[in-house]
């Protein structure tokens, strides 16, 4: 088995672990965390494809590597949105009465 395949299996395991957390974790923040663990596994699978495509003097196929870089940043944007929604929900629960409208 090549190194790339071994890391591919690692990616598969991480996806399974992350999925378990996303489905079963009770707290939303823990779920977001598990979603990020899952994402790490999926990115790793891309990395394996890139590694297997090494050639032409490059240590890996640059196309999947570039896709993973954008993927990591987009995953962060989604995580940030989810986390702030969670915080906003809590703030909304804390003040059930909507704040008064500012007089124009």
């Amino acid at each position, binding site marked *: 088995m090549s190194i790339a*395949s*071994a890391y591919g299996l690692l990616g598969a395991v991480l996806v399974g672990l992350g999925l378990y957390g996303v489905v079963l974790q009770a707290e939303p923040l823990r779920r977001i965390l598990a979603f990020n663990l899952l994402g790490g596994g999926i990115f790793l699978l891309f990395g394996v494809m890139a590694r297997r495509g090494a050639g032409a003097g490059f240590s*890996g196929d640059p196309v999947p590597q570039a896709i*993973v870089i954008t993927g*990591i*940043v987009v995953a962060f944007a989604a995580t940030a949105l989810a986390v702030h929604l969670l915080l906003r929900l809590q703030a909304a629960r804390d003040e059930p009465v909507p704040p008064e409208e500012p007089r124009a």
Partner: protein
Amino acid sequence: MSGAWLLDGVLLLAVPAIALASLLSRRVLPALAAFVAYGLLLALVWMRLGAPDVALTEAAVGGGVTGVLLIGAAARLLMPAAAAPPGWPLRLLTALLCLGVTAGLAVAVLALPEPAPTLAPQAAEQLAATQLGNPVAGVLLAFRAIDTLLEAVVLVIAVIGIWGMAPDGAWGGRPGPVQPRLADGSVALLAMLLPPVGIVFGIYLAWVGADAPGGAFQGGSILAAMWILAWLAGLVRPPRIDSLALRLLVVAGPALFMLVGLAGFVVADGFMAYPAAWTKPVILLVEAALTLSIAVALCLLVAGWPMRRARA
């Protein structure tokens, strides 16, 4: 190379173990500690896969900035009293499902075609035309520039989405909670000493990105981390979100990228095509603007929505 195999073996066992630790820990803080360590180890894995560009991104964004975002949220969220964990039939069923997914992926990984399909030769062939030395930068800013553009736009949209959560009266105010200025000597000192080094390093990464591992995302996220550090220590305040300069900074990168792309219709072969003689300067200009916009957007994504009523 038995030494390399030894290292790989340790990594292959350690990463799932730490993911498991993060999932199973009872409290959220240990889970987050494990998550940050997971990000650091994944950076090592990416190095072993021959992808230093991704390793830099994973370390800075995946481990660092995401970890800090989650830690900040955990500190502010009141965790509800632990609900009863789901019963064992449900847990067993989920475990089987996840095992099935893992098994399916594992089979797919082992059955990948040989020789592997690759775009590396094409990238190598065309790289000379971009005058860049780093193939990943070539893909990000030339061959698949449209992906990078859309990705930069996603960041802008996420910022707008988070700002949109502002309560009615707070629109236009400063985003995020007020960070008390640290009285604590050592951390405040670190927050003052680290950013100068980090800013130089972030700009260095963005600058060498054309020819060596690095680039706009990596440099931008290090710059963002340094601002967030100063913010957490109470040394700087975010600007009001109705500040025109801030808004221009957020959109500068994607806007310039789009303009360059549209200019391609006139001076080159089509959308996102660069004129041959100007390829590298144009790419560097776009990359500089993107670095700045990405850094500002990441800071705003961590800071959050304006909470306090804005003073007119």
